[in-house]
Every structure is written in structure tokens, then in C-alpha cells.
């Protein structure tokens, strides 16, 4: 697969204000790449650098093998962008926005644009200042997708959309990726991320803390297992097992969190005469939140 976005040791500092530091990741063609992080982590700064809106302090980035700082026009021709805080011209209608931006992109075939308008039920004939946030977001989505760009950079794309339209958006992203186009998706919505993305990076305090596939993260996510034994068991009975941490131990009930192999744990438990076992699936949300909270130590890539 071709690399569509390549970012190496990208750094942008803003004097006293923290920017991003040594951000490195690649996005391959046809994938949906998630970019996650808490507010102020550096997501929008990274996106603005990728689009040539900011200049980097150091590091390298290539979009379609082009430098967006030196040749932004060629990059913008192939990119559709939805900003995180979409601001449209309040006095213009949605239709005026679409017409003017289509003209600037020299888009003459409006069929796909019209299809998107119908699909999202976008209101086009009222001035933008009279529209709700959700209706403005629909226009933003049409502006981003209407020219069938090779790369979509979407910053919080479903903000303000109702659940039905969020589903419609997810369907559109899947269709887009299925045609070989690439989607770079920044989102707070973990459910949306789990449903859509192939790989993701988590950024915290301006640094990438993990880059992995969703399946890889799920495999690394702790599973919670609760044992109930015939007689009270001391939590220390599970000491010394790799990847096993006792979460709670009260009388005959012991709850453990497991990130390693299950065999040694089950062998140890079997010797203690268990009467009941309950296992909960990997909690991806908890894993994401733990990255947000702590950064999980050093960054790594898989």
C-alpha cells in the first residue's frame, strides 16, 4: 500500500505555549486512520500543519509525497477538510457556499455534491447564521466530500449531528475507504472510532503515546476476570503471575485484571477450588482513558 501521509519527528512550538513534539506516524492509502487525544493535546495543531496552515518548527511531513508547506495548492487539490470548529460565512446561504467552493475547485459535475446534500438533508437556502450547529456541520461535510478527494481530513466530524446522521456519516466514511480513498479522522467519540478506524494514534501533551490498530489495542487492553471460590482466598495467592493484577479481593471473591496469557492464571485459580468465573471483554474505552490520563509511559508503535 502507498503511504499517503508521512509524518516524521514533526515539532511545532509556540513560545511559552506547548505545541507538538516529535510527532511521527504514517497513514496508508485506503485506510481510516483515527487521531485521538484529549482537548489541547495537539490534534488540531497537527492537522493544521498537515494542511500547510501552520509551518513546522522542525521535522518532516509528506502528503502524497508533497510537502504541504512548500506546495500547499497541489495538496489542497487532493484533500477535503472539515475543521474542528467549522465557521462558515454567516450571511451566505449553504448553496452559495457550495457554489463558490465548487467553483474554486473547478468542480463542474455536481451530481455527487447534490447526492450528499440529499443524503444529509442539508438546508441550503437559508443564511448560515440562521442554521443550527448540526445543519452547519452538514454543509461542512458536503464541502469536504463533494470533490471526492483522495484524502479526507476530518476534525470532529460528527459534532452536532443526530444519531441517525452519525450513522449516515459512518456509512459514507466506509464507502469512501472502500473506493481506496483515505480518511484521517480526529474524534472524541470512542464509539465512532471503534466502529470506523483501522488504525489510530493517540496524542497527549503534544506527543504521540501510541500508534496501533484497533485490534492490536484491544489485544493489549486489560480483561477483567472475577473468580468466586468455595472458601475465602487471600489476594496474594495470585502474586507473581505475569500481566495479572488483583483489582479486588474480598472473602471468596477475587477480581483480577489480565493483560498477559490466561493459562498460568487459570492453573493457579484451579488449585484454589473455584465455583464461578466471569470474564468481561477487553474494555477499549478504559484503555483509551488510561492513555489520556497517564500517557502510559513511553510512546511506542506497533
Amino acid at each position, binding site marked *: 500500500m502507498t503511504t499517503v501521509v508521512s509524518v516524521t519527528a514533526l515539532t511545532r512550538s509556540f513560545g511559552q505555549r506547548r505545541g507538538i513534539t516529535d510527532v511521527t506516524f504514517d497513514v496508508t492509502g485506503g485506510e481510516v486512520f483515527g487521531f485521538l487525544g484529549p482537548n489541547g493535546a495537539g490534534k488540531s495543531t497537527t492537522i*493544521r500543519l498537515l494542511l500547510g496552515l501552520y509551518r513546522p518548527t522542525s521535522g518532516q511531513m509528506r502528503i502524497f509525497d508533497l510537502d504541504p508547506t512548500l506546495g*500547499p*495548492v497541489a495538496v*489542497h487539490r487532493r484533500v477535503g477538510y472539515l*475543521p474542528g*470548529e467549522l*465557521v462558515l460565512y454567516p450571511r451566505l446561504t449553504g448553496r452559495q457556499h457550495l457554489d463558490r467552493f465548487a467553483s*474554486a475547485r473547478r468542480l463542474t459535475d455536481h451530481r455527487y455534491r447534490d447526492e450528499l446534500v440529499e443524503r444529509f438533508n442539508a438546508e441550503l437556502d437559508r443564511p448560515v447564521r440562521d442554521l443550527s450547529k448540526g445543519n452547519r456541520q452538514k454543509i461542512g461535510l458536503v464541502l469536504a466530500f463533494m470533490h471526492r478527494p483522495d484524502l479526507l481530513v476530518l476534525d470532529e466530524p460528527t459534532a452536532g449531528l443526530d444519531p441517525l446522521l452519525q450513522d449516515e456519516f459512518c456509512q459514507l466514511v466506509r464507502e469512501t475507504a472502500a473506493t481506496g480513498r483515505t480518511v484521517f479522522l480526529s474524534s472524541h467519540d470512542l464509539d465512532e472510532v471503534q466502529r470506523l478506524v483501522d488504525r489510530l494514534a493517540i496524542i497527549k501533551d503534544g506527543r504521540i503515546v501510541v500508534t496501533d490498530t484497533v485490534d492490536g489495542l484491544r489485544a493489549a487492553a486489560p480483561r477483567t476476570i472475577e473468580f468466586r471460590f468455595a472458601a475465602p482466598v487471600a489476594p496474594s495467592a495470585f502474586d507473581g503471575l505475569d500481566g495479572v493484577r488483583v483489582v479486588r479481593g474480598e472473602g471468596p471473591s477475587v477480581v483480577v485484571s489480565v493483560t498477559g496469557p490466561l493459562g498460568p492464571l487459570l492453573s493457579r485459580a484451579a488449585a484454589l477450588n473455584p465455583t464461578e468465573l466471569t470474564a468481561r471483554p477487553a474494555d477499549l474505552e478504559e484503555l483509551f482513558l488510561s492513555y489520556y490520563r497517564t500517557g502510559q509511559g513511553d510512546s511506542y508503535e506497533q
Partner: protein
Amino acid sequence: MNSDVLRIDLRLRRRGTCWYTTGIAIYTLVIVALYPSFKNDTSLDQLTAHDSTVAALFGANGPLTTPTGWLNANLYANFLPLILLLVTTGYGAASLAGQDEDGTLGLIATLPVSRPTIVAQKALALVILAVPLSVVTLACAFAGRGFQLTISTSDLLAITAGTLLLGVDFGAIAMLIGALTASRSAAVGITAAIAATSYLIATLAPVVPWLHPARYGSLFYYAVANDQLAHGLTLLSAAVLVATGLAATLGAARAFERLDIH
């Protein structure tokens, strides 16, 4: 050249331009229509008879009862430049810094349009926004011929060009400062300070000897304060005004290349 950025900005400013143009038209017609009532009022001329500083402050430095003196003191030396500067400085400050603060510049800057092209289109919009005011004022001044206010066509055209270029220059300066500072208020404030200083130098230079050489540093001197209504716009003055506008626009393009867009 793709003109969509230009068309968006003109569309957004259409209503304001109409109101400014209507206002200046009404004002000019009133001034023109009042002339017959004052053309024999010799007391007015006493204001400027002895190089009055007060009269100079209002841009009047000759007899006020002549057609040129009347129009100069009431329109071309002060009021028209003021209105033009409101329009052009307002747009110049909003076009880059203001739209960046509003958040709309990011939409434009991610279109396949280069930053120098964006600045070129905004500079063109600046000129186009100033034209209706200048042209309507010119038409109303021509209407003065029906009120004994007769000024040669060439001189009226010259001062129209001078005021138009003056407005465009300060608009381009506001655009430049906006691109340098990313602040609309800084762009408006600094440009207003430059314009006010420039105006004071040009108007007071004839009555304050030590200011006399400084008039060459004032754009008002080249545009309206050197008897352009009586003697036309010299080639040198036109060249200075055009060169200033071009230099400010090129500077804005250069600064905009380095601006962080939000």
C-alpha cells in the same frame, strides 16, 4: 485567474458598500447644492486669508468661495478620504487578520488557491470596493455644474484618482499590518494612526514651516493636499500612490505566506 475569493468578499461587503455610497452621494449633493448660497460670502474667505491653522486643519488653504476651494474644504480634502478610509481600512484589516480571527480564512486557505493569489484577489476586492464611492462622488461633483460649481473635468478626474488611490493605499497598509500581526484591531488601530498623522502633516505643512519638508512623507499630500483639484495629479504623485499600494500588497503577500491560519 480563479476569482472566487474575490467574489465571496465582494458579496459579503455588498450591502455596506451600498450604504456608504448612498451616504457619500447624499452628502456630496448637499454640498454641491449649498454652493450658490455661500459663493458670495466673503467672511468665509477670511478664515483662510492669513494662513489660518484652523482652516488648514480642515484641509482648506485657499479661498473657500471658489468652486475648487468649496469642494476641497468640504469634500475632497477631508470627508471623502475619511469615508474611503473607513471602507478600505475596514476591509483591509478584515480581509486577512479579521477573517482569521473569525475562522473563515481557514476554509479559503485550504482550497487549491495559493496564498499570493488570495492576497491578489483581496487587493483587487479592495480596489473594487473603493470605486463606487469615488465614481458616485465624481458624478455628484459633476452635477455641481448645475449649481454654478464648475471645475474642469480633468481636475475632477485627477482628484478622484488621487482619493481612490489614497483609500486603496491605506487599505493595503491595513492588510499588511493584519498579515504581520494576525490582529484586526492592531491593523485598524495602527493604520488609523498612520492615516491621522499623514493627514495632519499634509494639512499643517503649509502653515508650520518646520513641517514643510515632512509633507513628502504624507500620502495625503500626493493625493489631495497639493491643490490637485486646481492643478491635477502630477505623474510623480500618481507614481508614489501606486507604488505605495503595490509595495503594501506585496508586503502583505509575503507576510501572509508566513501567517499561521486558524
